[in-house]
């Protein structure tokens, strides 16, 4: 099946990123009960499944290439993994 190789690559990359990012998370028990801790910047979004994904145009970490989400429209799905180092 022609999609198998990129599919497996996508899953492998997603899984690897998930493991890395999950390892960076503090244990849930470390959070205080009630209210947010200072520095907790979690914010609600009105997005729902089925909504058009907000478009964006961002540069890569090298700062030499710009990618627009909408450029993939009609071509291929995109997995967005948001995260940081810590």
């Amino acid at each position, binding site marked *: 099946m022609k999609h198998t190789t990129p599919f497996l690559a996508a899953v492998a990359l997603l899984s690897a990123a*998930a493991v890395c990012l*999950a390892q960076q998370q*503090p244990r849930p028990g470390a959070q205080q009960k009630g209210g947010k801790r*200072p520095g907790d910047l*979690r914010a609600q979004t009105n997005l729902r499944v089925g909504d058009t994904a907000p478009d964006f145009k961002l540069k890569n*970490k090298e*700062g030499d290439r710009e990618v627009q989400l909408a450029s993939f429209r009609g071509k291929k*799905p995109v997995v967005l*993994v948001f995260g940081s180092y810590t």
Partner: protein
Amino acid sequence: MVYIKEAHPTDGWQVPQNERQGVLVKDPKTIEERNKVAAQACSMLKIKLPCLVDGMDDTVNRAYGAWPDRVFVVDKEGKIAVMGGQGPGGFAPSVGAARSWLEQNLGGAPRQ
């Protein structure tokens, strides 16, 4: 990957786990600093995904409610197909949902 505002910088919500592991990063104050930490993160965490960097105004982070980490799958038509929960608790389960969606929609290898 979309690198966004640091979750637990040393000058913010520092956590003991990161101190123990030597993951000590100040919250970047410029896009150049943010690019540098993004590169460090990809290198240290062995992330092979293409890495984009959110702007210092955190526009994309806010649009997706992405902080501290989150997974989305956007289908070919540009619609949100999978919307993971916010980290830390919501992140890991959403990886499974993303995987399932990919399996069903990209024709991956059948499970044994």
